[in-house]
């Protein structure tokens, strides 16, 4: 039996299907990512797993406990960090942490070792009200509160949204540490680049899981022909390339444009096409797909 088993979970809000017959399993100690845009159903799924919301149908277990019958058990072993900052804004940093420790019948002192690496950054502000912290500090406090009862599983809903690139990297280093301590982690994110930090990821869209695999395998299974293109006028290039061929998709990727096509074509043909549009400094190269390319490909395959 896997540590987390999700079996055909569905949830509708009126006529809107938020989660559609979703099934997957997560092993103990796994760092599992749920990647998908806003509205994909990530939060609904997480709220069902944390026993905060009832599914319309389907069932799930965590550590063998049923999310319906054993909800009290699950609340004891799970640490949850919601996407929206949900601590008490008018309590101080320390009061919030003490509050959550007390609720779970423990103390800050007892589990200090576990949160030390994170809490150390906000400890200088321990007498500040939580509502007056910066985004990065709020996130560290929320994670500390989710960890203070030494959970077996951490469920983190978009913990890095709105967080700068350096803090995001540090955050993922921390998650690695918790994984190494044996804590199972489910984390959702809209940042595709964070997928590579997970053991396995589920790509989710419109309530459905499109693919579950290790990031390496997701990239290996990418099928379209993919090239990257550059010129001295990127904005015009983006518009021009859209007229190149049917069944192609083009997206800006930082300094380059990625062009993916269901069928292979001659790069010279593309070069001529772009030159005729009056571009200079053209560079066309084969390109290794990123998770973001895979996500686009799955999304457009479906449509």
């Amino acid at each position: 039996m896997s540590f987390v088993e999700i079996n055909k979970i569905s949830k509708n809000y009126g006529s809107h299907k938020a989660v559609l017959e979703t099934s997957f399993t997560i092993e103990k100690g796994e760092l599992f990512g749920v990647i998908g845009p806003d509205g994909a159903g990530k939060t609904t799924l997480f709220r069902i797993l944390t026993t905060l919301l009832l599914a319309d149908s389907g069932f799930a277990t965590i550590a063998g406990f049923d999310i319906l019958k054993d909800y009290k058990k699950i609340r004891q072993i799970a640490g949850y960090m919601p996407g929206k900052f949900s601590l008490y804004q008018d309590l101080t940093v320390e009061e919030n942490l003490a509050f959550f420790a007390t609720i779970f019948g423990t103390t800050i002192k007892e589990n200090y070792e576990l949160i030390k690496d994170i809490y150390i950054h906000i400890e200088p502000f321990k007498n500040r009200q939580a509502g007056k912290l910066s985004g990065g500090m709020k996130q560290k406090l929320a994670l500390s509160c989710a960890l203070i009862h030494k959970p077996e599983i951490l469920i983190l809903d978009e913990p890095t949204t709105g967080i700068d690139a350096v803090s995001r990297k540090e955050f993922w280093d921390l998650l690695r540490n918790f994984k190494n301590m044996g804590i199972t982690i489910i984390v959702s994110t809209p940042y595709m680049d964070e997928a590579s930090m997970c053991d396995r990821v589920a790509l989710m869209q419109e309530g459905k899981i499109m693919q579950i695999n290790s990031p390496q395998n997701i990239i290996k299974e990418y099928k379209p022909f993919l090239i990257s293109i550059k010129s001295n006028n990127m904005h015009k290039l983006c518009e021009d390339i859209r007229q190149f061929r049917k069944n192609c998709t083009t997206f800006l990727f930082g300094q380059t444009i990625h062009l993916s096509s269901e069928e292979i074509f001659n790069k010279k043909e593309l070069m001529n096409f772009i030159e005729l549009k009056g571009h200079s400094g053209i560079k066309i190269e084969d390109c290794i797909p990123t998770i973001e390319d895979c996500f686009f490909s799955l999304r457009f395959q479906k449509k």
Partner: protein
Amino acid sequence: MNQEKAISVKNLCKKFGNFVANHNLTFDVYKGEIFGFLGANGAGKTTTLKILCGLSKPTSGQINVAGFDVYTETNKIKLNIGYMSQKFSLYEDLTVYENIRFFGGIYGLKLKEIKKRADELIQKLNLTNIRNNLISSLPLGWKQKLAFSVAIFHNPKIVFLDEPTSGVDPVTRREFWDMIYNAADKGITVIVTTHYIDEAEYCNRVCIMVNGRIEEIDTPSQLIKNHNAYNMNDVFLQLARKGKIK
């Protein structure tokens, strides 16, 4: 690039008590430019943006926005700019159309004009079927595209975008940047902050802030060259890490 200045900042300082949020910032932004502000949380970006919008007074410095002084002409500045933030941009309990009408009215457009342009906008954004739905029922990406359109509805000279794409899905993020490019092509100057470093590459110039100071200000390609980096992410990590060691 047009060399007419949209924004001119000389020695801008802003203090909150003993805390210096902005240290002696000096920079210009040109008309029609897409100008990116990058920095870690707490680097001072929002403080600068608020001052430029006329929402907060600088402690010292000479600052001119759209031809107006930030100390004495904030009302004129407000008429000539648009502002959109990640946190607040539209009223959740008003419908799509009501929001457009409200913001159009605030900026003094005539109702007839608002109606006509609202119809065009709603059609362009494919919101026709849900024009009378509450904003709270829209997915984030749609909201943000509408919020941007509303922020430039009155044809401002400058539009300020504070983390407009945070949490938005990758496809919508790119559609959003198409809209930014189109606004810039029409001559609107765009000031944008972001945590997606790939988006920094889409700006004409970027200003990287560390601990309230301007650490770098240049085109993305020049910054990458100067730092011997592979992309803007490398540049950002190099600079922002420096800021962490205090």
